[in-house]
């Protein structure tokens, strides 16, 4: 009976619930993206460093790919690859946060401008989600040492990957709004 929750129906409920939670969590980003004040006469600041922004986006993509590969690994029963994959994804995510912290620290972008307000809000919100994502990836990689994930039982890993991909997409959309559109 202890494994009742692992039944297909239960996993389907977890999966649906977590997806709807992520849809719910997309609302703050939709609000920020679509806020007509913020993008009314909106501009991309000339002082923005597109190389650093691109480096962040690249790290996000690489990290998302690593997390995806980690999930594929456990689907094929390769537990060690999954743990390593999640840890690499977390390191890449942390590196992205370091780049963001550097950009914040140097204050290339003055916070008192319209662009600056949008920049610090969007990167702050997406950075917050990313910080949680790094924590979740590391937690799952620790959890994997104590709870054996298998090809048939790895909902925890799947949830971590969902969240990581969610924050990656949110971060990439923020990047597009901040650096290109």
């Amino acid at each position, binding site marked *: 009976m202890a494994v009742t929750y692992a039944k297909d129906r239960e996993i389907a409920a*977890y999966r649906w619930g977590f997806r709807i939670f992520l849809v719910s969590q997309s609302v703050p980003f939709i609000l920020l993206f679509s806020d007509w004040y913020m993008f009314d006469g909106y501009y991309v600041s000339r002082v923005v460093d597109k190389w650093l922004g691109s480096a962040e986006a690249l790290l996000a993509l690489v990290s998302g790919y690593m997390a995806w590969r980690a999930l594929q690994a456990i689907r094929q029963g390769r537990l060690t690859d999954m743990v390593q994959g999640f840890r690499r994804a977390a390191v890449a995510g942390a590196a992205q946060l370091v780049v963001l912290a550097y950009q914040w620290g140097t204050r290339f972008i003055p916070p008192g401008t319209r662009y600056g307000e949008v920049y610090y809000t969007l990167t702050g919100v997406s950075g917050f989600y990313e910080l949680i994502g790094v924590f979740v990836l590391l937690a799952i990689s620790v959890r994997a040492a104590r709870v054996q994930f298998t090809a048939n039982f790895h909902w925890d890993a799947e949830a971590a990957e969902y969240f990581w991909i969610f924050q990656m997409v949110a971060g990439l959309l923020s990047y597009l709004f901040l650096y290109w559109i």
Partner: protein
Amino acid sequence: MEQQMTQAEARNNPQTKVMHIAPLFRGVIWATIGFVVLDLLTVAVDPFRGHPLVTEPSEVMGWAGAVVGWLMGVGGYEEMILPLFGSPSTWVEPKDWRKYFGLSTNHKVIGIQYLFTSSSIFFVGGMIAMAMRYELMQPSMHFFTYAGQYLTAVGIHGSLMMFGVGTVVLISGLGNYFVPLMIGAKETVFSRLSGLGHWLLPAGALTLIASPLLGYWDTGWRGYEPLASQDPGGIVFYYLGVFAMTLSTILASLNLAATIIFHRAKGMTWARLPLFVWGILTVSLLNLIWQPEIEMTFVMALLDKLIPFHFFDAMGSPLTYLSMFWLFGHPEVYIIVLPAFALWNEIIPVMAQKNLFARDWAIIGLIFVMMLSGLVWAHHIFTNMRNSEMFPFSFFSEMISIPTGFSFMAAIGTLWRARLRLTTPTLLVLMSLFNFTIGGLTGVYLADPPINLQVHDTFFVIAHFHYTIIGGMVFTWMAAMYYWLPKMSGRMFNETWGKWLALWVFIGFNGTFGQMFLLGLDGMNRWVPVYPPYLKPLNYSVSLFAFFLGAGFIATAIHILWAWTKGPKSPENPWHARTLEWLTTSPPPDDNFDGEVEVVRGFYRYDHDEPSAYLVKSPDPVE
């Protein structure tokens, strides 16, 4: 493998831990530590903000530390953090009264926790309302010393009532308790999350109540800009308190929606789903969309206050804040009242023992109100809009009365030629129908720009929304408490007392808010502790009725508490209802049903004697 997976299970682990201090007490200690540590760290990093120990940024960080400490202290550490890292949970849920004072995974315990916390918030918010009415008995200030005190009282009253009561009691409270029972489920999908979510509610409410310590804020529950960004630090606790309470609602809604979709008993098809469950499902979806919206809006307003940014002040766009607030604010009203619509049609067929009229249309009404609720918001800011922009919002605001009318149609159609049992729940539902008719009709008036512009920001508006919220939701809440009291407690209330108290509250309510329509038409403005002397007689009369109403609510609460603990034993199904919660014992056992439920027909037909569902008893364990 099975052994390893068992280790990950939080429940029934042999390595349990004996708690040497009460979880609540531990929560307070950890919250204090969390606040002090993060507050001091923030002050150390960002020291030059006018005070050596408490600054606005340090309030925010300290609050975050306090909430995390609180949640961990009441049981989150054992139930969430340990299992997250693969260790077994050491949390033990007591079987006695202490189960209500810590993290629980039992949806019925969580429901009662929510009901208790929310009722306490209702009491505090009500006492603040009494103070406001006492102030308004005289045209000049005689109770509050500063106008800011009065306005802070108005803001705390409104915020507590909307985010701590209106959005909570029917959904997180009665919804948590009864939805799993009504669909034949033995547990909910995200029970730990739901249990943790409850403890955000008292954290948020206490934050709001503590806000005057940091300075009086004068924006009311709307937090209007640019006023808010100029307010003292108290407004920061308004944002944070509301953030915690809305997060609690999101978690409860997520759990209930997933449970309704995935934990229905065999035979519980969508066509057979009870009305109340439909109501909870629709508002859960609304909560999942709109509560994050207001949270993000408040984050932006908080940044305006702390950094400061200029999203919403005179250098930005105050109107954007108004729009973003009401984009959430009007669906919020339907979030509050949709479960009440559903409950009307849950209780009336039972009390009439008559088929529910137009059940499908009652459900379609709930769904269309849900969908239209996001299209009406700008009628709150007609005074800030061009004439041409008002039309679509005026149109949809009037159109939403049509699906709302479906609930009335089903109720009245069922009442038609019915041999109605005039019990206390029936009486309160009829009162609710009457009150909401007045609230709804005046809402149609307010949707028309000429009237809206005339009575904007007057007591006419206050009367209108109290008729919908108290008149619609609170009366139905009381009806539902009486209706389900035998199920929750196994005991019955006193019918005579119940009816007299209902009449007491009805007279107090209509005397208070009916006269407020006249006050508003006479020119009484909102948000003012002083007013022209010619308005004194009517204000005095409103206040007397308000005190009468407040006393009626307290008397009702005492009656319900008495019945819960000392009332006579109730029969198993005193109303002869057909929904599934009556298929089990009163109060229900831990796992709800002593066997598997199988639904064979709908619950709202009384033209036959066949049961709607069967309980297939669990076989006795083999020796």
